[in-house]
């Protein structure tokens, strides 16, 4: 057991931003909420997966909707707890632990705030190991864990419990409800038992995010290469260092799709093309695919190591693109069906990352 206090939040948020692979929402607002909750209720205990009793009830708590709206409609800070209580009411039992559903982006921070308010410990891990856009894209789906009942709560005090025939259907219904509830809601869903954590979570990702954020910060302070520091923690491969020379965006089927072209700088040659939707999903070097979802494609500002989101991609940015292997369960046929390139509408198969 360790604790997350206010002093850890900056590093954790920076690391979570990088693990958001261009999406997941800026952890900034989540950090403010977590800081406020810890100030009021004290630091949050964090347990390793192995420390959690097999009969424990672990509830992922998260936000769903548009990060842009979250910047305006800052949560009251009680919605997560409202969603949790609504879920507990239909489950007929109380949560014993909280866990992030995704480590990438703002959803790394919201469970910290929720755990502080609920007086519950966190489990060190998450259900994706990165950020994904839809509720069924979690490892528990692969082991037959249902994401329903799914409780949603809005800022006005409304709650809704979704029961659905599949995890995909729950996503569909919840996303439509989310729009009606003001485009930003809090969710509690995908309940895990203690003995399901090994199969249902990517372990130790809260620690990973904090280590990552700290390594980048220290490298920058010591005038060392922050991207190398990030790779040292993540164990990925540097795909390209370049400059964004072209960004193209369009809206199809309601989701924003874009493509960015990078040209070489600093001893690099050739070009890299990035395809993104909410996250960076595909990287082609000189026309050849070098990385695809579900592996993590992280775009970092070359000088600062700060994550570059898909929304902020623009001409002139100096970025380094790194590829980080996803959790191996994502590259099974079932994992790829949930979150591989074809699910996102790209006509190609997943390809392992090149050797470092």
């Amino acid at each position, binding site marked *: 057991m360790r604790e997350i206090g206010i002093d850890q939040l900056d590093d954790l948020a920076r690391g979570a931003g990088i693990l958001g692979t261009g*999406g997941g*929402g800026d952890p900034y607002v989540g950090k*403010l*909420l977590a800081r*406020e909750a810890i100030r009021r209720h004290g630091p949050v205990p964090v347990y390793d997966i192995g420390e959690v009793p097999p009969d424990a009830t672990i509830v992922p708590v998260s936000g*769903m*909707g*548009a*990060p*842009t*709206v979250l*910047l*305006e*409609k*800052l*949560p*009251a*800070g*009680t919605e997560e707890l409202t969603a949790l209580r609504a879920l507990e009411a239909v489950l007929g039992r109380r949560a014993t632990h909280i866990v992030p559903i995704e480590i990438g982006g703002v959803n790394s921070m919201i469970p910290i705030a929720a755990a502080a308010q609920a007086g519950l410990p966190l489990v060190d891990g998450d259900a994706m190991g990165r950020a994904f*856009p839809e509720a069924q894209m979690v490892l528990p789906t692969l082991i037959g864990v249902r994401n329903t009942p799914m409780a949603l709560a809005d*800022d*006005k*005090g409304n709650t809704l419990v979704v029961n659905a025939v599949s995890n995909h259907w729950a996503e569909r219904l919840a*996303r*439509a409800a*989310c*729009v009606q509830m*003001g*485009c930003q809601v809090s969710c509690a869903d995908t309940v895990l038992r203690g003995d399901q954590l090994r199969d249902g979570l990517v372990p130790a990702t809260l620690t990973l995010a904090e280590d990552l954020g700290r390594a980048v910060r220290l490298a920058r302070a010591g005038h060392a290469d922050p991207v190398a520091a990030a790779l040292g923690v993540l164990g990925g491969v540097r795909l390209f260092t370049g400059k964004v*020379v*072209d960004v193209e*965006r369009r*809206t199809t089927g*309601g*989701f*924003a799709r874009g493509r960015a072209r990078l040209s070489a700088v600093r001893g690099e040659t050739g070009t890299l093309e990035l395809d993104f939707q*909410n996250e960076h999903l595909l990287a082609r070097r000189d026309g050849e695919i070098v990385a695809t979802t579900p592996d993590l494609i992280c775009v970092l500002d070359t000088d600062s190591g700060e994550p570059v989101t*898909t*929304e*902020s991609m*623009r*001409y*002139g940015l*100096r970025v380094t693109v790194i590829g980080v292997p996803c959790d191996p369960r994502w590259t099974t046929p079932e994992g790829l069906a949930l979150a591989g390139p074809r699910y996102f509408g790209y006509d190609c198969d997943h390809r392992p990352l090149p050797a470092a």
Partner: protein
Amino acid sequence: MDVGPTNTDAALVTRDGRVVATAKVPSAPEDPVAGVRAALGRLPRHELDGVAVGLRGAATAVTRRAGLRRVAVLRICGRSASAVRPLSGWPADLRAAVEAGAAIVDGGGGLGPEDRVPLDREAVRRFAGAVAGRAEAVAVVGLFAPLDGEQEREAAAIVRAELGEIPISLSADLGTIGLLERENATVLDAALSGFAAAVADGLAAALAELCPAAAVFVTRGDGTLMSLAYLARHPGLSLGSGPASVLRGAGALTGLADAVVADVGARRIRVGALAGGFPEVAVGGAEIGGVPIGVGLPGLIRVPRPFDPAELAEAVDRLQPAAGRLPLVVVGGGADAVPGGLHPEHGRTAGAIGAAVSPVGGQYERIVRLPDRSALPAATEAVAEEARAAAVRAGADPRHVEIIEVTDTPLAYLPGPFVRLRARAAGPPSPL
């Protein structure tokens, strides 16, 4: 005119943009009007249609924590957004200089009118009573006010009924989506109301005497102008206006709409970009006096002098705003120190020239859900109309206001599609 910290510049410019004469005089500390008076006296006597003045005093007042009014903050958002209190995260000394109470009351808008929560008018009255005697100005910040400013106006009317004549800043006039940053900008705007009123009165009096037939305008951070009356109501909009008018001036002197501009001062070089004739704004939000304000200030890279040519070249390259290399324009009092690039005549007073040739501006934004792409033009036209109206309120000639920029950005993680529409309008200053 351009009132800088060291010098006040003036340029006499014809209606079609020809520079007739320029002047440079030392600025008077703490007295921008004295510099304006002196510099104007150095220009050949001429019947002036208008005077446009670039002021940098607003930013200085915030960074020095001097001459600021005490502000009471009313946030209209009920339970939503209540997790983070007003002014949290401000530097302690600035907060101490400005804070005069805060309240969060029920109400607030949403993405659509059906999301609106009724305003708790009684709570607004209690807020006004509680801050009476302490507050010298009031900042009113409503949830989603940039999309629906009705409740901010309603609350302001209640506050005014309780407290009488007191400066009230409304967030819808100042910022965009992003509650905390817009709130910060609104509080600074209210805090600057005393400074702005004094400058506006001083300028109006001095110029009424020196050039009674001239309409008077001041520069804004987005590179456009606003009337003195608009400055008095929205001083926050003048933040960042100094660099903006230098960029505009560099464009006017070279006839370029797109360029990278190096403004060479005595102690540093400020490099910025001009896109479509206007300053490219900073990515990731602007900050002033240690407070994030989210208002679109020009994005600048500062290179200290004496400078390393490689560092300057890197800064210039970073600010290339679009594919293809744009020309570099070098202006400012120290322009001779930078070889290469275009060195236009009168570049030493680019800030004053930029003020003289700039239009009056206004902007508006809205988030809409479109049934399909074909609904975009109608939605865009409605937003453009609001932007035109905003420009006219700021002092633009209604007969000649044009839309200068329209953007549509889909919101991530939402079906719909939900699109954020933003329009900017500009027109020549309305004659007196």
